[in-house]
């Protein structure tokens, strides 16, 4: 018999969902739905059950249901998180109640669905793609396991927007690039295959870059993948101080990359 299997006892939960259809409602309001939950009912399971059995108009995004596609970030009892990997029970208060709101500070399209346009615009601004060196190599670029490990903090970001919508600086200034875009910039700056770290650092040094971050750590708290945008921002700040030498060192590194890949 498998040791840790969850027990199947059922309890009733009151799920409060913030509703809002801008075409008909003046302002957002809450509706409460009562559903049975077991230890392994996720918040997404609860939303699906409510939509199927009680109210088909409850609107939310989801797809993968295992914390990899980034669709389902919402605000649960005041905290941003994914809902597909969170058991309802872990979030019930003393009255067996849980409150689900859309990600804050973003325009609401309907109910729990927000408009992430500004989020994607900032992502585009940092040129999220790799800018490889000139020349077509014959083999793979040789990147060391340590160099790969240094990227892991950024590489696994699923672009769910939980950090962005938790960030106080974003809330006050829509031009700030935001933790997600800075994390992506970090990925590119640190990747030995990227040929433009100098230019990237220059951009990040600008008005809406890394020095706007107030180090409030909300992003770390909100990240469902346990990533650390603040640390990445710190690293970028340090690299900006030695931008010229860093860019020169990259050029040397790239010559080696190219010669090894022939």
């Amino acid at each position, binding site marked *: 018999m498998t040791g840790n*299997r969850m027990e199947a006892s059922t309890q009733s939960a009151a799920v409060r969902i913030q509703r809002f259809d801008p075409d008909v409602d003046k302002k957002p309001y809450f509706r409460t739905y009562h559903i049975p939950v077991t230890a392994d009912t996720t918040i997404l399971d609860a939303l699906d059950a409510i939509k199927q059995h009680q109210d088909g*108009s409850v609107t939310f995004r989801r797809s993968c249901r295992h914390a990899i*596609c980034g669709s389902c970030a919402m605000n649960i009892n005041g905290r941003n998180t994914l809902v597909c990997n969170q058991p309802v029970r872990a979030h019930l208060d003393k009255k067996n109640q849980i409150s689900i709101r859309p990600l804050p500070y973003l325009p609401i399209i309907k109910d729990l669905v927000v408009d992430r346009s500004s989020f994607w615009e900032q992502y585009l601004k940092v040129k999220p793609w790799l800018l490889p060196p000139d020349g077509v190599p014959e083999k793979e670029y040789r990147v060391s396991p340590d160099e790969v490990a240094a990227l892991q903090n950024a590489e696994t970001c699923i672009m769910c927007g939980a950090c962005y919508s938790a960030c106080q600086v974003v809330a006050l200034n829509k031009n700030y690039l935001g933790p997600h875009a800075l994390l992506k910039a970090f990925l590119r700056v640190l990747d030995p295959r990227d040929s433009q770290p100098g230019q990237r650092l220059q951009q990040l040094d600008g008005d809406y870059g890394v020095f706007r971050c107030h180090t409030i750590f909300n992003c770390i708290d909100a990240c469902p993948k346990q990533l650390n945008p603040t640390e990445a921002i710190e690293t970028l700040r340090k690299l900006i101080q030695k931008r010229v030498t860093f860019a020169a060192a990259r050029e040397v590194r790239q010559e080696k990359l190219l010669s090894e890949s022939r």
Partner: protein
Amino acid sequence: MIESRVIEHDIIVVGAGLAGTWAALSAGQQGVANIGVLSKIHPLRSHSGAAQGGIAAALGNVRPVAGTGPRGPLEPVPAGDEPPDSWELHMFDTIKGSDWLGDQAAIELMVKEAPEMILAYEHMGCVFSRLPDGRIAQRRFGGHSAPRANYAADYTGHVLLHTIHEQALRHGVRFYSEWYCMDLIVEDNICRGVVALDIRTGALHLMRAKAVFFGTGGYGRAWKITSNAAANTGDGVAIAYNAGVPLMDMEFVQFHPTGLYGKGILMSEACRGEGGYLVNREGRRFMEDYAADKMELAPRDLVSRSEQIEIDEGRGTGADGQGIDLDMTHLGREKIMTRLPQVRELAMNFAGVDIIEGPVPIQPTAHYSMGGIPATVDGQVIADAAGTPVVGFYAAGECACVSVHGANRLGTNSLLGASLFGRRAGTAMAAFVQDGAGLHPVSGDPVARNQARIAGFMDGGGKKESVGQVGAELKETMTRQCGVFRNAEEMGKALEKIKRLQQRFGQAGIMDKSRRFNTDLLGAIETEHLLTFSEVIVASGLARTESRGAHYRVDFPKRDDQEWLKHTMAHKASDGPILSYKPVHIFTDRYPPQERKY
């Protein structure tokens, strides 16, 4: 009411997973500027991003340590040493995995181009895991006789999808994010465009194009226990079928041996690739009874059936005896944390188990669709067994059937196939457009037709059925009667049930009547699609009176090459699919059919 528009592109790509994004990018690189990519979810949410284990190519970077046997520990191959892997080996493994139903010329092309495909990803910025000397790391995967799964820890699909999406943005590809393709317009065997719903506004638009590409992904959502994302509802497959395009080999659906018990969420094959054990109630590694040589790394169809037999014969684990234990505790913390971090997180969140400390309960889960829209290696969709092209219509990825996976896909071959055939289709479409293809007129009013379809769901009067209920019964039926083990009686019942469900669906309405972001409506259209192609799966499976690859008939347990070494083609007719058959391409001198033993 929001205006319906007519939108024109040279090429419309439906789907922004690996197949669709590669198609758009490569067509763009060939100089076609006016490309639109539709995706019903944001491109980065596409299911390709959920792939965990790896992408196949015989780079030959690692080999088992000499003298440790085929399952021994792996080491980097020193420079200058004979490469331990080759495209020929990859080709044979794929043919054998396909149970000889794969088309061998297509397989040959895929495995030969595979290494270059991996390098293309690497040069674009994909962060692969590495060997100490900086080359790409490789691991073992089921059914592959050499370690050739190139990976990024256990989130390979995630890094591939982000990399290719970024490059598409870099090259200015235009994405219509959260646009839902509802209909394909084919007249006189010429494709003319699609009808799409802008989910946010609720407006329907006619989108005309010289070439249309489908990369709409798989259809595991027809089963109750599945590893597939909510978006995997086989829209493209159903839409093409409704437009008169045949569907090929739909009876072949792969059940992955390690879905989380009760949920179906995937525990990557990398769990076994890295050395995990499958254990029954008696604490025994039962695979020694079924595949003594390959053990846990036998191909998926075989492992899933073995598990199901253990469960059916009372040797399952868990309180209800319906599970199997996947035990990785002997791998140790270090290996688990570096190679299987996502798997560990999944097991913790969804089963409350830390795989470092204990086994996790699993069961077979509907995973991969081998069948689909018949297409050539250049993505050209064909209208019949003779290979007549549907002019201007292309497909690749999991919604298509090339067929490289035949009756059973080997793990890691699908990320490869989706990328490679998506890219080839993009190049072919560019040539088609540049050779002077034009926009073809559209007769009738397809937008009004689809508007009426939507109105039908919205119309409240006298609707007795709920879409959700009909969908739930379908999934239950497919899981019980068209799963790992099949027989004529059960599939016959399933077919009748599906027909009844289709009728009941005509009486089904939805609750959300609004225009804006109506996911209730999308759910209804998706359920209609599930009902459409599930009928084809069951009818094709019922007709195929043999066992081959993933299609296992208890009443016909042997493969029958005399009668059944052929592809199923299903065309839509008013009272169900009409089946015909297409020969398999085989190099009889090199890879004649053999018994498939592991």
